[in-house]
């Protein structure tokens, strides 16, 4: 599998650390309530198809990257710096 780091270009997936769903970008406010926090910390979809998740270019530039890809056909549709997606 190859992932295009927005900074370094296309790289082998072995250079990246896989985190999980990009849900982690949307941190609730401290007073958002137990349900919102439970969803944020613990609940994840397990889609067959398109998914957005976070990868860390640990063996490269150190960028956190949002990767939109397909879990069935493994196509990578887009990659974006997390700091841009988070804004």
């Amino acid at each position: 599998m190859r992932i295009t780091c927005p900074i370094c270009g296309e790289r082998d997936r072995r250079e990246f650390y896989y985190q999980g769903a990009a849900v982690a970008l949307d941190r609730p406010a401290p007073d958002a309530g137990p349900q919102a926090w439970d969803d944020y910390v613990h609940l994840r979809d397990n889609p067959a198809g398109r998914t957005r998740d976070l990868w860390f270019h640990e063996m490269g530039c150190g960028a956190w990257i949002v990767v939109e890809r397909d879990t069935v056909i493994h196509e990578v549709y887009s990659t974006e710096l997390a700091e841009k997606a988070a804004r």
Partner: protein
Amino acid sequence: MRVKDKGLINRAVPLRFTFDGRHYEGFQGDTLASALLANDVRLVGRSFKYHRPRGILTAGSEEPNALMTITDRAEPNVRATVQELYQGLSAKSQNNWPSLARDALSVNDLMAPFLSAGFYYKTFMWPRAFWERVYEPLIRRAAGLGALDKTHNPDLYEKAYAFCDVLIIGAGPAGLMAALTAGRAGARVILADEDSLMGGRLNSETYQIGDHTGQDWAAAAVSELTAMDNVRLMPRTTVTGAYDQGTYGALERVAHHIAKPADDLPLECFWRIVAKRAILCAGSLERPIAFPMNDRPGIMTASAVRSYLNRYGVAPGKSIAIYGNNDNAHQTAHDLAAAGVKVAAVIDSRADAQVQGDFPVYTGAEVINTTGRLGLEEILVRHNGENLMVNADCLAMSGGWNPTVHLTCHMNGRPVWRDGILAFVPADDAIPGLSVAGAARGIFSTRGCLQDGAKTAVQVLDDLGVKAQADVPEAEETPYQISPLWAVPGKGRAWLDFQNDVTVKDVKQAAAENFRSVEHMKRYTTQGMATDQGKNSNVGALAVLADVTGRAIPETGTTTFRPPFSPVSIAAMGAGGQGKGFAPERFTTSHLPSIQRAAPMIEAGLWYRPSYFPMPGEQTWRESCDREVNMVRTKVGICDVSTLGKIDIQGPDAAEFLDFVYTNTFSTLKVGRVRYGLMLREDGYVMDDGTTARLGDHHYVMTTTTAAAGQVMRHLEFVHQCLKPKLNVRFISVTEQWAQFAVAGPRARDVLNALLDDPIDNDSFPFMACGQVKVAGTPGRLFRISFSGEHAYEVAVPARYGESLFRLLCAQAEAMGGGPYGMEALNVLRIEKGFVTHSEIHGRTTAFDIGAERMVSAKKDCIGKTMAARPGLIDDDREQLVGLKPAGAVKQLIAGGHLFAPGAEAVRVNSQGYVTSVGYSPTLDCYLGLGFLKNGRARHGERVKMVDHLKGVETLCEVCDPVFFDPEGGRLRG
């Protein structure tokens, strides 16, 4: 038997080799298989189940029978058809005892009526206790491939990466033509072929291309490609798998063909090739025919006979018969006759077949039996209702050709049946970026292959924005005509899968027992599960299954081909991952002086740290450890703490950022001061702890636990980039840039002042101060922090000065009755003070559990704060950090032991907690433990029972405060 003036072998270079202890001679350019056939060796192995005598079936990597052990390097299951001959090669046959010709277990063959499909499943059922102890060893002994040499594998393996515009897989006519077209257009090309000699079938046939023989044309094409800087030729390289985003796995056999490889030459190299586009030109494989007793040595595929004749100059028999269902088979007879080899008969299953030649021809005929115990002697042919005998020691069979579709199936692509050629061809776009050309997609003429290779390359290059031109030479275009011939009825067994001994009868029986799905049939009969992975047998078995279940072949299905295309050694895939490649060693700058002091090393992650520094006369580690603890408590000790993670944090928003990742506040920390910080995960549990020093308004240095350095770095980047991207702050790991040493004990300041350019005192450098210093003229950093509870410092210098500073510190300390101390003493010192490590903050404990809930600031948000406030995480009944001291006759404490009420039975449901850290305290003259106990903070003074069931130890303990020594901290500030 050698044939004069034929073949691409070098007769000027004879090579001696042995097989089963006997000496033979071959030539440079031979494979082990061709050299054996040249010496008239037909019997080369025994089959997996029935121990049937077997000979060479093919001339390629699909060989199921001729598996041997190369004894030079004790490598089993080497296909003789792939192994190139070298001077002194030594091979032996497998799966026989006492010898290949007289194999005791050939009695299995007599038992064949009872050993049909499903035999194991039905027979070795009862009693259950026999499964592993009796049946499995028995079956493993009887059925088998080569034996593993259980000694360490001394061979080198390598892995490598390559990148190209176009990867061309296979260097036959289509592949060479594609490579020429792409190479001439200037594209970066990799051409990989599993053979040592590129050219594919051109080297095994007598075709003309333009004015040249096919062999000469291939050699000229290879020369032209070799001269191109933009083309990389990779012979002996099998592309084994197709993966995502244009990544291909490939195995290069680097040194298997060399008699005495250089010491640094790897045996194999596993490549990961990343290609913008790829063209599969893998050709096709000829199918055997399932006729009765079709497995005798001497019976081989027709294309293999032509390979041995035309490429290796070997006639695999003195009298050779040909049996086929397609026109391509006839070429064998013509080539043999032209070379002066006797053609015993041409037997064609088709009544209307047109065969011309000076040899007996039987059309509309079939082979219904064969004889010959250790090799073929006679063939029984049924022709026009009559049976006739043909004397032959070799039978060339052709059931048609299967395009080599394997790689196109590696991402779930299902090949498509094509009636015209009675074979599966690749589905369109089965692998993104991979095109298929030539025989691999069912184009079987040389002319067609050349044109298709060029045309496909032009299309692929056009996609890449490169203009290319097809310049294709003329070549033969023989129409390929075939009629179905899968299994010939008759008495006797007809093999489909030679290696796993699966016959037509077995497939029929599977269907009769309702294993009608091809996947079920495969598992029930083991068809296709041998090392050839069904390359020879899949389509034949499918056809038989289709026939008995009354379905057409395409609706019966196809089996799934998975990577690898041909066997890949685990050693090659894991190259670089053995021994120290698996776990590299990280050494501190004090490693050499520590080793010189005979300190035993202990691993901390990948780091090696000294356990203790033995002194003359000390017999056990405990003696050294006790001495070192006393030394720190009474004099001074030196300890390398460089392995702790060090993260340099800079930026105008560094303070605000740290307030968010730490539970406590760092924006209020004064420049020149250090603070202990606690970090949570977002789920509220403790992630790590450590001290962070403020070196400037916008500059902090964080320390992390040794093992958590990578995790914390990743976490900081995550929090910044994903949650707080607007904060202006940056991080960099400086763990390896700074060598850092703890100087601990009442004389710590005296040691330092002997080395600092500007001496310090308690006013200029109070507890938790930090700052820039000069150490023996070298700029460094000094932190007044303590992990021992003593008056202590950590002094840091750039790593290149680490070793000399360690030596200086030790010399100064020794002059004052101190010296270096290791991990054992460090651990005892911190247990005496109740300081936690990852033994306590092990991922399941909260700030509340370790008694640090007051460190979670109420004034600000931080990572983990909300979730840490969940009722279940601050419940009094949680297991809380306590100290434990022996209080009965038994004085021993053991980490991992569980805690129970003194009167309770020591069973899981009664467990009230557990012990996490234990050390013998010479200061307090007893064992001390840290552990977690339900509602422990309210139970100081109570008695509990520690039980370690593994070691059989039960100790009555007193529960106490985790800070055993100097609870007021007076020594720290002294």
